[in-house]
Every structure is written in C-alpha cells, then in structure tokens.
C-alpha cells in the first residue's frame, strides 16, 4: 500500500492547518476568530498531550491523523542509532555523513528516499513515525520535538502551545504553510542533514576535483544561516544556482572563504545569477565560475 498518497497529503495539509493559528485573519470577525482560535488550541493540546506521553503515544497520534493505523511502514530510511535530543536537534557533521552516505547505500531498503520525496514534509513526518516506534528518538520526546528557548520565553500558555506546536511541525518535516517549500530543507534537522550531505557529494563531483565531500559538507554545516540562505535562494529566487556546477562553485568558494555570513552567500549567488542572464553557466570554465562567485563574497567581506 502506498504511503504518500494524495489522500494522505490532503490529510497532512488539513492537519497542519488545524494546528496553526495564523495571526492575520482578515475575513474573520472577532467572535469567529476566537472560536477558531479555541479550536486550534484544542488540537494543539491534543498534540501536546501525545508528545508528553512519550514516543509510542506520539507515533499512535501521528498514525491516526495520517490514516496510517494499520499500515506497515516499509521503504523508509532508518537512523543509525538512538539519538540524544542534542544530536537530533543539531546533528553533528559525522552523524549527517553517516545518515547521508548510509542511506545512499541502502537503495533497496530505503527505496522511498528520493529527492522528490525528500522535498516533501509528509515524507519526513512518516519517517518520524518509524523512528518513534523503533525508539530511535528516545522515549521522552518533548525536548527534541517541541522544546526550546522560544518556548521558555512564551508570553502565556496559549503562546507557549503555539510555539511548541510550530517547533514540532518544523522539526518533524517542515511547516510549508508558514515557511514555504524551504522549510523541509531548513527546519527539519534530519532532512536538512540529508540534503547537506547530498549537496556536498554533488559539489565534490562537479568542482573539478578542487574540493572533497567532507570539506564541502563541513563548509555547509558550519552556519545554519548560510545554509538557509543557499536553499532559500535555490527554492525561491535564483533557481539557476541549482545547476550542479554553479552550486559546486558556491560551495567551493564557501569552503575556501573562511566564515561567510548569510550576506556573502547571497552576494555570491546573485553574482552567479547575474552572469547567467547572458551566459549559460554550464559552459563557463570552472576557474572563471569559481573566481566570479568567490570574488563577490570576498568583496563584500572587505567592504564590511
């Protein structure tokens, strides 16, 4: 039986809508808004209760909302071992490499793990069900899936529940309704690690042997802001940077350029995109392509 069906995708979308309070409700009167807010709060409390009950309860809850009660989950990637909350929230470089490379080597066992599926929050949420049932996130799952500094600083119970819910949705696959298509690449820690390792492998292949996969990966892992800028631009604004050679040039420049800030990744990507207006970057010699993007990031650093 298929896992990622249209019906399940629709159920997933509706579930996220029911769980999130969007502050702007221009077509709703005050009474209606309060009623809706109360309904959202009720759904949030149900999720919160499942998560605080532990991994098994969370998995049961997710199976129910996704209409997966009786289904055996096959073809999904598994984690190499039980993760601590810290490892889950910020997977170390070695863990991301272990996950990314290990899953590459399991094509028969993890055959649902394709870029197409990995760009879908629903896919990662279903993976989480598997990991919860296998005990790979521990039994106490509130800290990794819901907790954090933002929650501690909540104004009141209602605000705390909202923050906890958003944390859960982002971390277990992404919150496209609020963060768009970039959320799955940026907010879900395991997905983020897989995509980073994938980009690193691609960069090593297309960078004219000037960079190896571990160096590329380390450069992407160093700063969450820089990673987020790279994927944000690739999803929304400068899709030309998704060409393997162009992205490799950006990553190679990042690796050799020291500690980039978000603005430097943006400058380098914009330089590539401007050049691509007149030229197909696929034909530009590697040294020239690399030089272009590296120079723009360097100039920004010097200017600042």
């Amino acid at each position: 039986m298929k896992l990622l069906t249209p019906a399940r995708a629709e159920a997933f979308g509706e579930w996220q809508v029911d769980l999130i309070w969007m502050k702007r409700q221009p077509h709703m009167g005050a009474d209606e808004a309060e009623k809706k807010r109360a309904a959202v709060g009720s759904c949030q409390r149900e999720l919160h209760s499942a998560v605080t009950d532990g991994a098994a309860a969370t998995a049961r809850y997710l199976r129910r909302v996704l209409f997966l009660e009786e289904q055996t989950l096959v073809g999904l990637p598994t984690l190499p071992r039980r993760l601590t909350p810290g490892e889950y929230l910020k997977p170390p470089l070695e863990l991301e490499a272990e996950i990314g490379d290990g899953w590459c080597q399991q094509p028969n066992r993890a055959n649902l793990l394709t870029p197409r599926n990995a760009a879908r929050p629903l896919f990662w949420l279903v993976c989480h069900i598997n990991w919860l049932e296998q005990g790979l996130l521990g039994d106490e799952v509130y800290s990794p899936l819901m907790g954090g500094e933002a929650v501690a600083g909540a104004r009141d119970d209602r605000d705390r529940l909202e923050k906890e819910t958003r944390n859960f949705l982002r971390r277990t696959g992404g919150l496209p309704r609020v963060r768009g298509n970039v959320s799955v690449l940026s907010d879900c820690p395991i997905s983020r690690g897989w995509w980073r390792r994938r980009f690193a492998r691609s960069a090593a292949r297309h960078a004219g042997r000037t960079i190896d996969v571990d160096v590329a990966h380390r450069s992407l892992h160093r700063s969450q802001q820089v990673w987020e800028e790279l994927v944000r631009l690739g999803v929304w604004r400068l899709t030309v940077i998704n060409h393997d050679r162009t992205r490799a040039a950006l990553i190679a420049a990042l690796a050799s350029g020291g500690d980039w800030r978000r603005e430097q990744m943006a400058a380098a990507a914009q330089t590539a995109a401007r050049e691509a207006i007149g030229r197909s970057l696929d034909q530009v010699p590697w040294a020239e392509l690399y030089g272009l993007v590296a120079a723009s990031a360097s100039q920004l650093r010097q200017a600042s």
Partner: protein
Amino acid sequence: MDWKRASYGVEIDVRRGGAQVTHRLRDAAEIENLIAAGDARFALEVRCPVTQYACIRLDADPSFQVVWPPDEVGDEIFLLPGVVAVEDVVLPAAALTDLWRDSPCVPKGWWLAKGDVHTSQPLAASLVEYRRDADLPSGCMRVREDGSGEEPKFAVHLAPDVFGRVETDRDLQMAGLIAAFAILPMSDRFREGSDSRVAFLVRERLADAGVPAWDEGDDWDPARAATAVERLHAASDGALEEEA
C-alpha cells in the same frame, strides 16, 4: 542578443516525464551557420526549485526530446529554451543592430537567443483537478467546472474510497478527464474568441490529432477528444521513453 532580423521561437509539448522541444529560427543564417559549425547549440534548461534540481540539454538538432528523472523532480518544472554558444565566437556586426559597431567576440556559454519560460504541467493536469468529496456515496464521481482561476479547469470530485487511488489508477484519471471533456462544450471559457491559454492548447492538440473541436459540428466525442490529449495507456505513447 541584438539581432537585426533573426527571430526565434519554440514549441514545447509537455508529456509525462519529459517534453518534445522544437526550436524555430527565422532569418537567422548567422546562428544557423554557428550551429552547423559546432559553435552553437539549441538548448533547453530544466529547473525544479522544490528539489533544487537544474540541468541543461544541448543539441544540434532543432527538434529533440528531453526526459527528466522522475525521482529527482517535483510536480512543477520550469523549462527555459534558447540557443547558446558552445565556443568563443565572433558575431558579424552586420547581423546585429546598430548598437554594435564592431563584431563582438562572445564567450562560450553566451545566449544567442532565449525563449519564454514554460512550465511542465501536462495539458491534462491543467484541465482537471481531482478532489476528495466526502458527500459522495461510495464509488461515485462527479465533475463540475471550476471557474475560480484565471484559466478554465474542471474539478473531478471523487468519493473518499476512490480518491486514494487516483494518483496511480490511470483508468480513474481517464474517466475523470473524459467526464470533463463531456461538459467542456458548456463552458464559456472555451467558446471561440476566448483568451484562455488552456483552451487554445486543447484546440491545438485536437487539431494535431485530427479530432473535431467541441464547436465544430454536432459530433463532439468527449472520449475521443480526451484520449487525444492523454492516451489511455501512457507507456505506449504519452510518456517519453528514456533515451539510451
């Protein structure tokens, strides 16, 4: 590029998993000479932002197929056609607008011509949208026109027990498409003179297949028309085969 007379156009016929591309050059002897000499190529870029995928296909032939790996792309893909220099080339000033006094040398990769961006959605996917309808009895379907968007579309409502199969059940997909074609003639968005791009593409596809359009005579055949847009068995014709 600032060509004095040359013009460039492209036709892109999107099918399941790929596209058939036909580039057209007119009054463009200079570009054609570059292509014949191996210094330029017809090009099609394929980009899928959701999966951060991008590639480019180059060919000396103006008409070629492009196939994209289904596991690496999402549902919406952007196609960017053009003609690109694959060597450093000198362009004759006489062929360019008066802005160019000398013959410029353009580097490898230079876009000699660029077409409009196309999207990958097959025509059938633009026409129908499948929706789960809890009010329908088990095993039932109904079709209504959805006039809410800029382009005409038909909503195929499916009972919950059936909806789950629609992504993989081609017979079900075709049943919905045929039902949409059955009510198409009643739509204002498909009347003659409509500025709808979808209506235009449907008309073109039917004309290519030799199938009378909905307003040409009394023999409107929704099944024949639907299967001119999407064959019953995609593998035999509608889908593009992976090139060896």
